[in-house]
């Protein structure tokens, strides 16, 4: 990759959010959904956005993903603005991979074609796409399912395929909107472990939205807690638990202290 130059000791900011605000206009009133978001996210960091429903965490993620243009403030990725006026900056969009709450696989494409779609859109030849899709299936643990239709896979496997698709263009930033929200608790623990492994192997920056405190503490380098109405930054908590974390880390006093603090803070919003 391009990182041949020596890294400075201080990790550079990969994403810089400045004064992000989002207003919705309904029929007669203005709703302020999000305000005063100022944050720098370091290269290679795992940031979790946590908050009650209606706190604007998904909105914030959609703004960073370029799916929504914020009504105020700016998003800067690798020192470049995400928006040039009304146009998305192509160079920035190329660095992003997005995983949604639903896998959103296209039912008319095989798993392999779904995963390689971003490559197809960039004009990568078919043989190369096949090869890369095979590698990605192995990475996310669905090897052997390349030629299947999405409907033939379980929910967890479909979400794995969606992660593979987001990774196919080797994005530097992975944005995930409650990616495991629809899965059962056991599959969810498993997916959290796998995500940690994939993140360590790929070295990309991750921003993940969740409403599960345990998931947040387990995965995050830092947890950003958002308070509702209007959504704003509440607390930013560093989780200094050694990596890679095993599922048993959840029963350590340190983990539980973070969990309790976040839960008390969340309860104070109600």
């Amino acid at each position, binding site marked *: 990759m391009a990182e041949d130059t020596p890294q400075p000791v201080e990790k550079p900011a990969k994403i810089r959010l400045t004064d992000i605000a989002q207003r919705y206009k309904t029929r007669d009133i203005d709703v302020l959904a999000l305000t005063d978001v100022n944050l720098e996210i370091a290269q290679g960091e795992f940031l979790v956005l946590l908050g009650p429903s209606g706190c604007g965490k998904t909105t914030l993620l959609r703004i960073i*993903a370029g*799916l929504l243009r914020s009504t105020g403030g700016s998003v800067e990725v690798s020192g470049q603005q995400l928006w040039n006026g009304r146009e998305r900056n192509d160079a920035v*969009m190329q660095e*992003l991979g*997005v995983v*949604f709450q639903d896998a*959103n696989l296209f039912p*008319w494409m095989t798993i392999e074609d779904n995963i390689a779609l971003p490559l*197809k859109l960039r004009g990568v030849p078919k043989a190369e796409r096949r090869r890369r899709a095979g590698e990605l299936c192995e990475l996310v643990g669905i090897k052997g399912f390349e030629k299947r239709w999405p409907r033939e896979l379980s929910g967890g496997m479909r979400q794995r395929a969606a992660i593979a698709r987001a990774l196919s263009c080797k994005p530097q930033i992975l944005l995930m909107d409650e990616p495991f929200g629809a899965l059962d608790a056991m599959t969810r623990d498993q997916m959290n472990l796998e995500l940690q492994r994939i993140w360590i192997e790929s070295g990309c920056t991750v921003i993940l939205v969740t409403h599960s405190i345990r998931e947040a503490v387990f995965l995050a380098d830092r947890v950003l807690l958002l308070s509702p109405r209007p959504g704003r930054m509440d607390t930013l908590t560093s989780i200094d638990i050694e990596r890679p974390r095993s599922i048993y880390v959840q029963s350590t006093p340190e983990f539980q202290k973070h969990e309790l603090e976040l839960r008390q803070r969340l309860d104070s919003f109600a």
Partner: protein
Amino acid sequence: MSRHTAWIATPLLLAALVLIWDLYVRVFEVSPFILPSPLEVWDATVLLLSQPRTYGHIWVTLFETVAGFIIAVVVGIGFGALLGKIPWLERTLNPLIVGLQVMPKVALIPLFIVWFGFGMTSKVVLAAVIAFFPIMTNTILGIKSVERGHRDVMQSLNASAWATFRDVELPNALPFILTGMEVGIVLATIGAIVGEYLGGSQGLGYMAVATLNAFDVKAMFGVIMLLTALGLILYFLVVMLRRYVTPWHESVAGQH
């Protein structure tokens, strides 16, 4: 279980209907000019099939139907895609489209005969015009009913409008288009036959009228049998197309 019962139940039901028909004709001594018995209709159909000129008429009707249908499919998908992609164009043309759709197309036959003559062309045009609307409206519906999440994926990949059409909107519309085509092929058959009834000297529709004018009711029933067979074959060809075009779809998945 239910699939196997259908294989037995359907032929049994058909046999029962034919039996009731036969009994009714025998018991009430219905005149063969009103309703011939099943056996007489069968004989008349076999007789028709032994005459070479019948095949000429079948060919004419088949050609008109298929040509009209193909035109309807090409133009219907083309227009549907355009209107589905460009909302302001659809809003502008919508009143016109609804008006044309409501207009009884059969009433246009005299006009088509004036414009395109008594030959096959006027029937091809009629078949195409009738079959066009369900195909177009279903294409529009299919393109507009792309899931929000699927659009988000394409947007997050920064996909061009053309790539979104090719990889998402068109495949999403295919099951809808095929439903439109299933309706369309039936309408195209009706269009060709009605066209032949009302003007012309060839095709199965003309044959039905000619046999009626000759008071040959048995032969007329034979012609109806041939028309039904033709319609059924064309319909099932289109239904089979679904398996090849959308093997991924739920409607195909259940029936291995």
